């Protein structure tokens, strides 16, 4: 199933977890629990050492995952080991994509010309396609720098999801929307990722700016409850993206030493609440021109 298809049958619930948080085996169970909870797409984080777009919750998840030995290579194994059928999106920072499959140390040592030696994003995308990943979200890659990754995605049939921020307007918005595929990640408020106790006012106006663009709009940043999900979808979103609220459950379970099944159950419960909220929200939506 393609990403866009995942949005076809009503509002999509798009949860996020960092792969390998807090360890490989538990993390497999957690991600699978998301699907049981109703996930339509799953964003799987490949942790990067400098997660500049993340708030404290996901920063800590990144630390736990890295300390647990997560690497790009392990990440692809992780995806292969996962027993889920919904589409998977890899969320990571561009340097990991850019560096993957780079020349060996031996090549590097013998290269003294000073030339650029990276292979660029193609090897990463090729491998991602191979293990069944459907698309990418890359928080530090704006449309301006995305051509090489876009080209590799096109080559291997993957989607490239872009984030649209509350500050994104006019020409910038056009430029992004020309390149986006799968869905557009609507950033609900300024700042970094992180669960919030209330829904941002900025969401409505952000969605309004996007009305004319014909691609599913998934709203993220700060959604933590079924109630949030309901209101977001009611105000026009085609989907909701939830990360930190789920990662909080992983973190709490890790701190308390809870067993993985218990934590997985909690994740499934919250997932279901969020999904149900989204579905409830859809029924309140104003009439909307039908999408192709």
């Amino acid at each position, binding site marked *: 199933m393609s990403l866009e298809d995942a949005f076809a049958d009503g509002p999509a619930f798009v949860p996020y977890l960092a792969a390998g948080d807090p360890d490989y085996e538990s993390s497999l169970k957690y991600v699978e629990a998301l699907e049981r909870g109703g996930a339509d797409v799953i964003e799987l984080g490949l942790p*990067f*050492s*400098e*997660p*500049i*777009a*993340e*708030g*404290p919750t996901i*920063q*800590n998840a990144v*630390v736990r995952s*890295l300390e647990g030995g997560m*690497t*790009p*290579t392990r990440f692809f194994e992780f995806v292969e080991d996962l027993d889920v059928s919904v589409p998977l999106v890899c969320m990571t*920072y*561009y*340097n*990991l994509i*850019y*560096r*993957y499959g*780079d020349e060996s*140390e031996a090549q*590097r040592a013998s290269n003294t010309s*000073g*030339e*650029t*030696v*990276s292979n660029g994003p193609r090897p990463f995308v090729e491998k991602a396609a191979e293990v069944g990943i459907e698309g990418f979200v890359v*928080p*530090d*890659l*704006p*449309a*301006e*720098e995305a051509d090489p990754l876009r080209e590799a995605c096109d080559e291997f049939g993957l989607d490239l999801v*872009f*984030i*649209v*921020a*509350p*500050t*994104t*307007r006019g020409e*910038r918005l056009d430029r*992004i929307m020309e390149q986006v595929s799968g869905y557009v990640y609507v*950033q609900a408020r*300024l*700042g*970094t990722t992180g669960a919030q106790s209330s829904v941002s006012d900025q969401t409505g106006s952000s969605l309004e700016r996007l009305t004319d663009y014909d691609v599913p709009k998934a709203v993220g940043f700060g959604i933590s409850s079924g109630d949030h999900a309901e209101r977001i979808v009611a105000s026009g979103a085609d989907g909701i993206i939830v990360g930190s609220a789920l990662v909080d459950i992983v973190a709490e379970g890790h701190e308390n030493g809870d067993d993985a099944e218990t934590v997985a159950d909690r994740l499934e419960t919250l997932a279901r609440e969020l999904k149900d909220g989204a579905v409830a929200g859809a029924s309140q939506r104003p009439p909307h021109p039908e999408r192709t």
Partner: protein
Amino acid sequence: GKFGDYGGQYVPEALMPAIEELNDAYERYVLDNEDGFMDDFRARLRDFGGRPTPLQRADRLSERYDREVYLKREDLLHGGAHKLNNALGQVLLAKYMGKERIIAETGAGQHGTATAMACAHLDMPCEIYMGERDINRQRPNVFRMKLNGSEVNPVTVGRGTLKEAISETMRDWATNVEDTHYVIGSVVGPHPFPSMVRDFQSVISEEARTQAREKLGRLPDAVVACAGGGSNTMGAFAEFVDDEETALYAVEAGGSTLEVDEEAGVAPNSASLTTGTEGILHGARTRLLQDRDGQIMESHSVSSGLDYAGVGPELAHLVDTGRVTAVNVDDDEALTAFHRLSQMEGIIPALESAHAFGYLESVAGPDAPDSEEADGLGEYVVVNVSGRGDKDLESAIEETYERDIDIAPNMDEFTGGL
């Protein structure tokens, strides 16, 4: 915004409109001197900052190295380092842009203190992000920032040093981007920062070039500057880049060794030009200390101002094209050079700047092998004294004691701190 393949704008979308706005302001105010911005900036650098800084003949070093050694005295700039050139320029630009709040990151505290000074001078509210570990290592600088009216926000994630502070400041910026300007402290980050910071810092080489013509009647054969992020380096080189007869040496922190421990994710040096590989960090494509996967490594240097895993994209490009020669000096050599300049010239340099002098000693000193490198320096050498060492007294005592630097004064009574 590109230097060969380096540079670019690798930042979250939320920041892009602000970066476009900044780029527009950069082109208008800095490049086109709209509203007399550059005149205002230069006047403030002169009156508030103390420019021009001297180009001084170092009499005793000249004798020691058997060539004419001249010092570009950025240590005399207000605040004690070249950092003010950039901080003042950016805060002033933010004011012209109508921004109402300044944020900045700082490692050793030099950029933070320069930004805090500029903000007090220009009446702008200011918050500085600083790793908790750096806060504990650089308490006098923290106090200086607070005295100048800035807030200092401790960053507790990760190792609590510069790299984490930059990431945290980017997060603040992403949150408050509409009224806030982020004063990046070096020639790093997304375009237009590398170009803009270079332009603000290029007053160093602009002056040095004029002063060399006046004093020597010619251009220097070589310019030597230490390189961490590269702002003093680019400042000292910029106006000489087209002077093919002037060799340019960027001296990196060799730390304790150039060997890298990939397992631990630690590079016990900050020599990203010498040992780094291409990658994307903090908004730009450049040379980085990273592991095979692209995870950024913890860097190290005895000088906290050089202790950074990246380097400015333009400098990386100039090294790649051969215009700039990247060399490096290890912690011990830098400390020894710190003591040598203090004793022989009456100038206590920043540990950063000491690296530049360590290079001079290593290729032209009494114990240096006769080498082509020494010839490369030529007859007239300009060394950029990027800052003064007052901020480094505490660490100089500790590190000197631990390493037993033979030319150092007796440290015994100072062990345990100042």
